[in-house]
């Protein structure tokens, strides 16, 4: 890329350190995902939300953990915000996703949540 992404407000070193902990498993799992979409129907949110592809388990982990590893942790607040919507609003971590290849999808979502939390990004519930 010709332009450098601004990572202000994100402790990229901390993010990288978390990513490195599970790097081998995660990178191999991301590589092993054949993008087949057979996981879709196992997500009850996908079924209940007009089969919107954004609710597919694979869509959720590819666009959270996938992006984190692709950018080697150098993400900005906007990236993390998008991830937050994906991994909290569109996933309840019921841990029931099916993957024909056997990818541990809940673990990936949990890792993305951990990275987001470490940067203070998590769902804000209404408080008075």
């Amino acid at each position, binding site marked *: 890329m010709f332009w450098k992404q601004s990572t202000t407000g994100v402790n990229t070193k901390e993010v990288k350190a978390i990513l490195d902990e599970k790097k081998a498993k995660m990178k191999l799992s991301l590589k092993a995902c054949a993008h087949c979409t057979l996981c879709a129907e196992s997500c009850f949110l996908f079924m209940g939300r007009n089969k919107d592809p954004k609710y597919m388990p694979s869509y959720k982990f590819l666009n959270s953990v996938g992006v984190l590893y692709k950018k080697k942790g150098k993400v900005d607040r906007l990236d993390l915000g998008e991830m937050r919507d994906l991994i909290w609003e569109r996933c309840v971590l*019921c841990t*029931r996703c099916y993957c024909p290849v056997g990818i541990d999808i809940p673990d990936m979502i949990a890792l993305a949540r951990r990275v987001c939390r470490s940067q203070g990004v998590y769902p804000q519930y209404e408080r008075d």
Partner: protein
Amino acid sequence: MVKAERKPIEEIKDAINGYEKVLVTGCGGCVSVCLVGGQREVNELNAQLNIYLKNENIEKQLDGYTVERQCNDQFLEELEPKIDNYDCLLSMACGAGVQNLAKRFPKIPVFPVVNTVSIGIDKDIGMYEERCRACGHCVLGYTGGICPVTRCSKGLFNGPCGGTNNECCEVSQEIPCAWLDIFNRLKAQDRLDDIKKIYVPMEWHNQTPRTIIQEPYEKRYSV
């Protein structure tokens, strides 16, 4: 989280006897995690019931739908447009979910599909062990993180009874004595003073349904 077990199929068959259109509602919360009330179990139950109905030559319409959590009205909203098409609901949620569903749609009979058993931990896939009785009076702080209400057969608060039997409970040689475990853990942490005080017996005020309000929301609900 809340752990539950499926009721015997006979009981479920009896429940829907006489109702033509049945909606099986799954819950994506705790019962989904403990593999008893999620979308997959909804499909499984419907498949089992369909085989039975076919064998008995009974005509029924069985559908399934899973919501995020049945214990929250917000997530029951999406059932609203569907509900008029059904004669009864089967709920795969825990006791709280079933009641919330029944209250939200008071005109339509709601039947439970699972027996809510405990609040427990995930030991292994499909194996869950009770850890908490939701007594509303947590003493884990001074018992070294071992619950005497759940683990001790008598729910004692001030040390073991006289029935301890070779490190086990007098109820069974299979059950380790909770108070021995509490003692050993506190000893290892050098905290035996914690159990030298006498604690008053439990006020069993869980005889009426309790409502809890999380601390940040107290103001919101205070009169």
